């Protein structure tokens, strides 16, 4: 495993080193091919030369042997017989050498024919010399021996003639063969040179391609890294990974860069989330301030609408006492009711009250309105007693009833009625003020609702808007408010949260 890792081309340095090794291998291969080809060509040339030399050697030996045969025949000398034996042996050696030596000679039909003819010659000349020796040593010197010797000598010389003819043919054929071989070798030499050039060019091309590949790989890796870094510069949240796939240090570098970018992006994300949270908090704070401001304004308006209530309350008590003294009971009651209503207002301006108290105050107000309008309107209360302890801001219901009288029943001369209903359903208290007055068209209702609920808008419906804002402030925005017109009844209703424990309920 470790060996594999060591051998793997996983560094730029190793890649370059491999290129140099490749270059060396190509050079060595070319050298080997050149050497082999040159050696082969030289061998062929040497072979051809040796073949010719051997052939010539045979010719010389044959000529020499034939001289000794002639000498033996003509002069019958023992030395000639011995010399012939020697030459005969030499010819035998040369023939053997040619047979076992270069294959070039044996490939030539003319040479092979000469070899066999030479053997025939040796057979005949051996016999001739033997006959001569026999004849010399024989005391009779018979006629038939002489005839046989002469015949044999003629055969030998005839064969020698064939040998000479054969050598002519063989030299001619060999020279032709040499010429042909030379042409072929020359052509081969040219092709060797061309092949070597082709292989050299291929080797150079392979090395050049390899090095170009390595350099391109390095440049490509750097380009990828640079491009990615630029991309990150322009868009730090880009999620594209850097993939170099170069199988070297650039891969490690890319991995490190990817990790670094991950860290940066994580940190940037955290910072962004914090900023978002901060922004949301700031907005909420601003909204709170604005609501608070609105509340202060409404308070101010409320205070302004109650100029010196204590003074009025005292005056009303004095007037009530005087009215009783004068037996003006109805006026006294009116004064007392008005005083009670004012006292409620005065005492609970900054407090939360129970629904029961709010209803009681409303009833005072309603009594006052009864004095004013006598039997023109009727007021109906349907209060769920379970809601008596329900905590709420003061002066919520009175403005609603006042609006119903003012805008709903204002034009109604007889039969006008206002219903005040308080119900409890599933942890919510619903307060509804209904009237059977002239009511409003749905479009107007929608506009009114929009003005009331849009906090930043200065509205002419200050009363309702005030109530809505105060309730929202009091109940942490958990207020459902709606105005509807159904079956001749105009209903203003609030749905408020009612918890078993906690501030909305006052025990």
């Amino acid at each position, binding site marked *: 495993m470790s060996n594999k890792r060591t051998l793997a081309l996983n560094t730029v340095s190793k890649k370059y080193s491999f290129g140099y090794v490749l270059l060396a291998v190509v050079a060595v291969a070319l050298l080997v091919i050149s050497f082999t080809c040159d050696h082969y060509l030289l061998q*062929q040339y040497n072979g051809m030369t040796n073949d010719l030399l051997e052939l010539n050697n045979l010719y010389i030996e044959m000529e020499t042997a034939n001289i000794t045969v002639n000498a033996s025949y003509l002069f019958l000398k023992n030395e000639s017989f011995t010399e012939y034996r020697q030459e005969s042996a030499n010819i035998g050696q040369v023939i053997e050498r040619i047979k076992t030596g270069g*294959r*070039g000679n044996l490939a030539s039909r003319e040479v092979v024919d000469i070899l*066999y003819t030479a053997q*025939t*010659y040796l057979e005949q000349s051996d016999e001739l010399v033997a006959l001569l020796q026999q004849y010399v040593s024989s005391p009779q010197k018979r006629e038939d021996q002489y005839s046989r010797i002469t015949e044999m000598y003629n055969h030998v010389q005839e064969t020698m003639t064939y040998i000479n*003819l*054969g050598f002519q043919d063989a030299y001619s054929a060999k020279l032709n063969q040499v010429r042909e071989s030379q042409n072929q070798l020359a052509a081969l030499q040219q092709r060797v040179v061309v092949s070597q050039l082709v292989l050299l060019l291929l080797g150079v*091309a392979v090395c050049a*391609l390899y090095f170009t590949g390595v350099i391109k790989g390095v440049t490509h890796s750097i380009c990828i890294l640079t491009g990615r870094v630029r991309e990150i510069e322009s868009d730090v949240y880009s999620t594209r990974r850097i993939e170099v796939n170069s199988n070297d240090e650039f891969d490690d570098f890319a991995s490190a860069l990817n990790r670094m970018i991950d860290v940066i992006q994580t940190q940037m994300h955290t910072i962004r989330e914090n900023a978002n949270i901060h922004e949301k908090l700031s907005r909420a704070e601003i909204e709170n301030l604005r609501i608070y401001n609105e509340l202060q304004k409404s308070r101010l308006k409320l205070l302004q609408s109650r100029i010196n209530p204590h003074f009025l309350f005292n005056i009303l008590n004095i007037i009530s006492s005087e009215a009783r003294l004068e037996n003006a009971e109805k006026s006294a009651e009116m004064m007392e009711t008005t005083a009670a209503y004012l006292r409620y207002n005065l005492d609970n301006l900054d407090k939360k009250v129970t629904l029961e108290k709010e209803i009681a105050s409303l009833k005072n107000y309603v009594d006052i309105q009864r004095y004013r309008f006598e039997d023109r309107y009727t007021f109906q209360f349907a209060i769920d007693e379970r809601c008596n302890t329900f905590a709420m801001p003061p002066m919520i219901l009175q403005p609603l009833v006042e609006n119903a009288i003012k805008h709903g029943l204002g034009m109604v001369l007889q039969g006008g009625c206002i219903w005040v209903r308080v119900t409890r359903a599933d942890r919510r208290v619903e307060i509804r003020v209904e009237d059977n007055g002239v009511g409003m068209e749905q479009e107007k209702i929608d506009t009114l609702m929009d003005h009331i609920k849009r906090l930043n808008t200065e509205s002419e419906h200050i009363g309702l808007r005030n109530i809505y804002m105060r309730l929202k402030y009091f109940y942490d925005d958990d207020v459902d408010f709606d105005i509807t017109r159904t079956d001749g009844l105009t209903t203003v209703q609030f749905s408020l949260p009612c918890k078993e424990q906690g501030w909305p309920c006052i025990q």
Partner: protein
Amino acid sequence: MRDSRGKGILLRLGILVVAAVSLFALGYDMRSLARLSANLENKTRISVIMPHRDDGYWTYVVNGAQDGGEQYAAQVDVKVYYPQLNYNIDQMTALIRRQIAAKVDAIIAQGNEDSAYQQALVDAWNKGIRLVLVDTDIADFVPHVYIGTDNYKAGQEMGRQLAALTGGKATVAVLSGQPGYDNLEERYRGLIEIAQAYPDIHFVQLEYDNYDSLTVLNKVKQIKNGNPAVDTLVCIEGTGGQAIGNYDTKEEKKFRYILVFDNMEETLKGLRNGTIDGVEAQEPHQMGLLAVRDIAINGVTQTSRALYTSIRWLTARDADRQVQADEQ
């Protein structure tokens, strides 16, 4: 990315292929050179001894033998010998004796009635050399193979064509090669035998052209001048038709009818231009080819056998076809 990788693979493959081809070509060159050095020692050495270094019939025989040599190159090696002088029996005999001295395995030669020539062939056979006679057979001879035309039948066919052409009425002179050649003698016998059936066909003269064109032209002139009644010339040896076809034109035609042997280029030329009226074509190429093939395939012949090659009768119409076929 994938495209560039694909190109890279193609480029590497291309380099590998070129390198392999270069190395293969180099190796092939060296091997083909080495093939020149094939050992002949284990091959059957065949010597073809031709009587005549011509430009026609015997050249076709030699070509056939050499084609056979190439066809059976693994088994045989063929070498051709010619005498210095055409049809010189002494030189041909010496060539046979030279082959005996060289201990060749087989001799392909023409048969001849010359006793020294035949003795040389017998000596060769006694030394274990296989004999194949082409064109001309030798009767009652040592075991051998004869490959060539059935010359007697060829002569008969010539007689039939002569009768057909002349309408059974002609005064005929015959031009042969040399005396003592069985093939020519048999052709002549076949010719005469058929002609005997036609009383108005008269053979008035027999001449020998010595297998050379000069003698042919000279003999033709002599026949014409010596015997003006001769209206038909029959050449039962190839050189006659070759010389007449080459040098005569229709206008110079000396006889009414000229019938010849062997379809050589010059003969066909004469046939086309109307100088020659008909040619009896042998298959010399087939003779040479079959001779070598027989040696390559069959073992030593213990009994004589004869393989007859076919003959064809050609007219001017056939000559054009023959030329076209040769050109193809």
